[in-house]
């Protein structure tokens, strides 16, 4: 081994694949549930599959520097496509598989994709619809042949056939492949990831092997990941997190990547696999908690009171036990009883019983949700990161986990806080550039390598932990000069199972108002139990009892805000419940389900105006986009409600 070389000589993904196939040849590398059974490929078999595909791609004419778009749900064959493309010297560009035609067209056009490897007919259809815009896209390769039999196959190929051709030409072509592999170094481009971006068009973040592998190496050693670890790959492949976990870290450490049978069966598959390393945006944790809450509403009184009793106890001591702090013996005994009858079965049914390291990232998580999981004994931690950083900027070390911070800098990452309060970082893993966008690159990354995160935050003096307040551009001032931090308030609201999404307005105004999206699962279940009939989301969201419940939640939030000196000005004065769910297809959210505040503001300006008037009802008409790209519109009469606020001076007295 040439240790003088960077990364112990394994400075590209193909080199790591070769190492894994040699050193961990029999360890499981990829698993996928298909036909009801978990099918496993070990590293040796995976290498064979990937090499076959790479040879096939070369014989189809894929050149060094070409772009290969990868669209589909998480499947081993698509993860192999990344590595095969990299072996050939091409650059993989994963795309969100639920993106609509226009979004895909933008990315493919921008990166100039030459090949596309897709999951099934749905993706082929989307590409077919936009092919006029994409003169550079020459060949499309699909995994699932279903429904494609009658399509014109002159530029459409089945994945298996490409591999078979690759196997046939493997010998005659091995020199070409070896030559291409030999020219790669740590500065070769590893991948291009398009950020969903809460504003504007997506940007193509270029990451080199050095970026990806330093991020993977640093975070893997931080959490002591092992080759025996298991992850469930169920988050979008185009998301940087999934890329680093399932491509970067999996290759670096050699652990196993498990792919669910279908997105709908994820929860069941999670339970069967029981991953040891688990990551998820807060949303999934919120959904799981909502499901538990709903189901506990339906059980008998004895079960319910047992559950409540032990959950209260877990809330009291669970976190301290997990952190290894001093806890009284009697409390420990009670906790172990609870572990036996409540916590363990609950964790098992959630599929989290084997989790050694769990991360939540992407958005701030409600402290109550975070504590709920930790109190069960699940080592859930927060990390703070972004695509430009190869995910990791800060991580929480074991034993120093708190809901209100995002941890200490990842090894190899330097942090600084700018004059405006914005967080900057610098590391080997920070991105190379934005593709075809030098101005954007210069705006974000200065010549010393400091990258602006766009988030406002500060470093706590005594612990060294970073605290994020909000998106720098979202944090504002109310008319009276007090702080306006919408995300903080929205997260408080979202902790209520009934509330799926909340959007707060009030920057530069006298007071705050909010849009609420109800959670159809939770509220629908409540309606069923109370014999309230409804025919649509819209009808349910306008039901007087629902509005009343939401109002009560908001009043509770107002009370808790009033006690916070900095944020008491953010109390909600008026609200309305939206007649439709905010949706990525309508551009109101990103594909990772973050609200695009500006777009929502524009689109519903009439409703906001209504909130800041003294009307009690407003009619509106909204355009919606269906999954297949067709458009329609819905109109609704929406009730505008006043909420009681707490006067902080009275409260203090």
């Amino acid at each position, binding site marked *: 081994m040439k240790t003088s070389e960077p990364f112990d000589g394994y400075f590209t993904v193909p080199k790591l694949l070769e190492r894994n196939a040699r050193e961990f040849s029999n360890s499981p590398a990829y698993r996928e549930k298909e*036909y*009801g059974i978990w099918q496993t490929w070990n590293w040796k078999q995976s290498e064979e599959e990937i090499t076959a595909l790479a040879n096939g791609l070369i014989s189809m004419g894929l050149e060094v520097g070409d772009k290969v778009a990868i669209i589909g749900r998480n499947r081993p064959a698509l993860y192999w496509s990344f590595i095969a493309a990299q072996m050939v010297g091409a650059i993989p560009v994963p795309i969100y598989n639920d993106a609509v035609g226009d979004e895909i067209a933008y990315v493919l056009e921008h990166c100039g994709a030459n090949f596309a490897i897709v999951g099934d007919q749905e993706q082929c259809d989307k590409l077919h619809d936009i092919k006029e815009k994409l003169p550079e896209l020459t060949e499309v390769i699909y995994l699932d042949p279903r429904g494609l039999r009658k399509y014109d196959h002159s530029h459409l190929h089945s994945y298996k*056939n490409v591999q078979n051709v690759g196997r046939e030409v493997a010998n005659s072509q091995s020199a070409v492949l070896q030559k291409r592999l030999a020219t790669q170094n740590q500065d070769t481009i590893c991948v291009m990831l398009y950020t969903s971006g809460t504003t504007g068009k997506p940007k193509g973040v270029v990451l080199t092997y050095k970026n990806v592998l330093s991020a993977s190496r640093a975070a893997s050693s931080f959490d002591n990941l092992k080759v025996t670890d298991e992850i469930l790959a169920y988050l979008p492949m185009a998301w940087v997190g999934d890329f680093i976990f399932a491509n970067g870290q999996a290759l670096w450490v050699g652990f196993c990547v498990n792919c669910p049978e*279908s997105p*709908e069966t994820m929860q069941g598959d999670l339970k069967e696999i029981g991953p040891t390393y688990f990551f998820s945006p807060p949303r999934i944790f919120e959904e799981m908690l909502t499901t538990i809450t709903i189901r506990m509403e339906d059980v008998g009184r004895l079960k319910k009171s047992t559950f409540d009793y032990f959950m209260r106890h877990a809330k009291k001591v669970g976190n301290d036990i997990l952190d290894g702090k001093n806890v009284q013996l009697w409390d420990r005994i009670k906790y172990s009883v609870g572990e036996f009858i409540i916590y363990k079965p609950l964790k098992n049914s959630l599929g989290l019983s084997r989790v050694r390291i769990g991360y939540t990232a992407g958005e701030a998580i409600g402290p109550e949700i975070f504590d709920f999981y930790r109190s069960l004994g699940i080592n859930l931690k927060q990390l703070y990161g972004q695509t430009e950083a190869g995910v990791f900027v800060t991580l929480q070390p074991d034993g120093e986990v708190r809901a209100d911070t995002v941890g200490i800098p990842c090894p190899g990452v330097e942090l600084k806080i700018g004059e405006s309060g914005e967080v900057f970082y610098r590391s080997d893993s920070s991105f190379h550039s934005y593709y075809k966008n030098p101005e954007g690159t210069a705006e974000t990354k200065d010549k010393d390598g400091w990258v602006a995160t766009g988030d406002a935050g500060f470093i706590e003096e005594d612990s060294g932990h970073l605290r994020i307040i909000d998106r720098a551009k979202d944090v504002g001032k109310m008319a009276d000069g007090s702080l306006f931090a919408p995300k903080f308030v929205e997260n408080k609201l979202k902790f209520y199972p009934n509330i799926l999404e909340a959007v707060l307005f009030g920057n530069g105004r006298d007071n705050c108002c909010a849009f609420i999206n109800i959670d159809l699962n939770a509220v629908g279940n409540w309606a069923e139990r109370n014999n309230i009939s409804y025919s649509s989301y819209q009808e349910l969201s306008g039901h007087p009892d629902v509005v009343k419940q939401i109002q009560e939640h908001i009043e509770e939030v107002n009370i808790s805000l009033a006690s916070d000196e900095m944020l008491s000005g953010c109390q909600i004065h008026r609200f309305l419940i939206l007649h439709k769910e905010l949706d990525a297809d309508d551009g109101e959210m990103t594909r990772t389900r973050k609200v695009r505040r500006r777009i929502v503001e524009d689109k519903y300006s009439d409703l906001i105006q209504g909130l800041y008037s003294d009307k009690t009802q407003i009619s509106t008409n909204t355009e919606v986009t269906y999954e297949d790209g067709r458009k329609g519109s819905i109109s609704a009469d929406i009730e505008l409600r006043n909420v009681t606020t707490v006067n902080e001076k009275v409260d203090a007295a």
Partner: protein
Amino acid sequence: MNNINQNEPVMGEQERTFGAPIMEMKNITMRFGGVVAIQDISFDILKGEVRAIIGPNGAGKSSMLNVINGFYHPQEGEIWFGGEKRARMKPYQIAYQGIARTFQNIALFKGMSTLDNIMTGRFTHMKTGILSQALWKGPAEKEEYENREIVEKVIDFLEIQTIRKTEVGKLPYGLQKRVELGRALAAEPKLLLLDEPMAGMNVEEKEDMSRFILDVNDEFGTTVALIEHDMGVVMDIADRVVVMDYGKKIGDDTPEGILNNQDVIDAYLGVAHD
């Protein structure tokens, strides 16, 4: 760019072509006491096609399906299947010949899981005896694995993985219909009979079901004969249509031909009495 495409068909939207008749009905007459349900009807079903039987209520469509299926035995006429004249048979013997069906009113085992229900569709392919199956030794074990694999492919095909282990009685109607189709498919039939597959479905469920029927026909080359009320669906997915009215055949043509057939128009829209 070399030999990548050697095994792949290069096709656009082509004319559909079919093989020889898989089933021929010759002068079938079926009476229940004094009621003539089917009167002297002849038609054939070609290998690989989607054949629809339509008609107003009481036209004799379901009786026709039951005749094909061997549940009813016509008083007159001959049935030819796979080039042989069919003798009087029990329905299970006909199932062994390679004809599977679904029912207008779902006929599933409500207390069993989706998986078990579809597994029952494999009974014609199971050869080991009760004893060895009960002990689950030797060939029975191997056989179960093989059958399970086919069942799982059906589950994958119909996209019902999520309900694999759910009790069928708890499923919504549209999904139960899909499970029933799954059970019929699991039999790997030569001829698939569908009795009102879209009855009681909403538009989305109808679209899904049409897609599945076309995919079955396309992927497995299964010949499909279906009875349906919904004219829109029939016109979209059928290759040829038989129209029945009061037990008689009043039309037998392509969907376009049927739409222009005066007898059919009269039967559906009624004729003015002078």
